């Protein structure tokens, strides 16, 4: 019985690992652009399908497909920003949020147009799962978790120690002051759009490996991603990781009592509760203005 609970916790850690990169991306983008970007969900779908095209159609090995998916998703993020968001920089956040929903409809349906609605999967060697004292875990899942952790560390390193990261944090803290100090905010937006979409695309490949690829794979996760980012304290890329593991664990553990289809309801409930009672996130006190 105790083993069974440990299994849920293990599953929660793995899904937390997959939510972490999109949650970090959401926070980075929110920090710079100040609106909730619904298009994040479709970057997951885009990553999943681009890697599918590379891996299954072009018969490339999955690590190469993964890199291609990240890069192309990055460019997709830049393209979306330039075409849809750039004309509206001065508008209020809600308008941009609605535009991002329009973007996600377009991208999701481009995927549907090309690849159809059926579930797809990568061409991977079948690996035998491992067992530790009754706990089951797939080798792919271990690799996914590891790769995801590596990227989390890299992003933290980028934010803390590089010029670009410092500039990103400066724009996120106070865009006006940053531009007074000569930081080129459009350049920062371009780089952040690339980074955010590339990280999310990477998560898309991971989700595709762990489950399957279909046009709705991203929008199914969007509530959980928002929940993770909001739980972590919106706009903070570091604590978004904590939020992601919290949401992943809560969703998996909820399946003990609830049908698995209600997982995203858990994410939704957490969004509402946290926004109402701790709007600065789980890990910070509310700032009093």
């Amino acid at each position, binding site marked *: 019985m105790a083993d069974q609970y440990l299994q849920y916790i293990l599953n929660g850690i793995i899904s937390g690992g997959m939510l972490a990169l999109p949650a970090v991306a959401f926070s980075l983008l929110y920090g710079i652009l100040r609106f909730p970007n619904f298009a994040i969900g479709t970057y997951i779908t885009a990553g999943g399908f681009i890697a599918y095209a590379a891996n299954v159609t072009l018969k490339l090995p999955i690590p190469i497909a993964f890199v291609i998916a990240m890069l192309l998703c990055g460019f997709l993020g830049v393209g979306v920003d330039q075409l849809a968001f750039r004309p509206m920089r001065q508008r209020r956040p809600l308008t941009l949020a609605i*535009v991002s929903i329009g973007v996600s409809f377009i991208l999701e349906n481009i995927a549907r147009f090309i690849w159809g609605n059926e579930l797809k999967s990568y061409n991977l060697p079948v690996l035998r799962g491992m067992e530790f004292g009754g706990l089951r875990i797939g080798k792919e899942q271990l690799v996914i978790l590891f790769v995801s952790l590596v990227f989390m560390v890299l992003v933290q390193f980028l934010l803390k120690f590089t010029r670009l990261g410092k500039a990103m944090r400066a724009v996120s803290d106070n865009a006006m002051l940053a531009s007074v100090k000569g930081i080129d905010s459009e350049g920062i937006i371009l780089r952040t759009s690339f980074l955010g979409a590339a990280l999310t695309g990477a998560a898309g490949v991971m989700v595709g490996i762990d489950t399957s690829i279909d046009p709705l794979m991203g929008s199914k996760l969007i509530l959980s991603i928002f929940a993770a980012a909001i739980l972590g304290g919106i706009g903070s890329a570091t604590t978004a990781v904590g939020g992601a593991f919290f949401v992943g664990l809560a969703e998996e553990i909820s399946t003990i009592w609830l049908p698995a289809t209600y997982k995203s309801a858990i994410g*939704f409930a957490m969004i509402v509760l946290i926004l109402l009672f701790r709007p600065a996130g789980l890990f910070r006190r509310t700032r009093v203005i």
Partner: protein
Amino acid sequence: MINYLIAILTFVLIYAILALGLNVQWGYTGLVNLGHVGFFAVGAYTSALLAKLGLPFFFSLAAAILLAAFFGSLLALTTLRLKEDFLAIVTLGFSEILRLFLLNEDWLTGGANGIIAIPRPLWNHFTKHYDLFYLALLVAVLILLFLFLERLRSSPYGRMLRAIREDEIVAATAGKNVFRSKVQAFTLGAALAGLAGVFYAHYLSYIAPEMFIPLVSINVWVALIAGGSGNNKGAILGAFVLMGFLEGTRFLKDFIPFLTGFRLAAVREILVGLFLILLMIYRQEGVLPEEKILS
């Protein structure tokens, strides 16, 4: 051909009621609601289930509107203090969770199969020209709603809602109860969506969760913004524009040979998304901008 026109007009009028509801929330009061389809679904399912139990139409209609209003006020009471961009997330999330509920609770909603054979009101009296009768009924409902909402708009209450939309701090300083008025406006909008749901369910006599996807909310937004938010005539005109657009794209398949099935559906959704973005960027005031009222 005439039957096709009647069917299209029926859908236009149902969308017009939805757009009028969103207009009270967004157009009058500036409250974002991306989960309009959720209240539409509450109305449709409530009325359908009660009618299947044998209750008369007007009873199931009233119950459906009340329940949609109840859900609206509940969501508004808990979340309207949020910043509007987060309200967007929460309202969209609400409609998705509701759809999950409809999909999973087979014992109540029939799950993915939905509800079939929903009785049509006064079916026995109008078997011959029933669809025409139904359309006339909808026209009557829409006219009454329009008159009521126009009256509301030019009343002091409507002026207060607009004041809240423009600057809620000023409205609060002028002694208006901003939060209560916002909850009321949101509730009224949700009730109207519920009413639209009732007419939708009893017209099709079949409903299923797949009809209540976020695309419907987006369609209503497109209709309202294209027509002119804040303007009731605009909301109704927008429903015509939207339906013209959606039906017009149906004929794309006559010109492009490979456009069938899921591909056609995908192209239509791409066009709706594109239309929404272009409206937001270039013409947020719509075809019929809000009329100035001097008072």
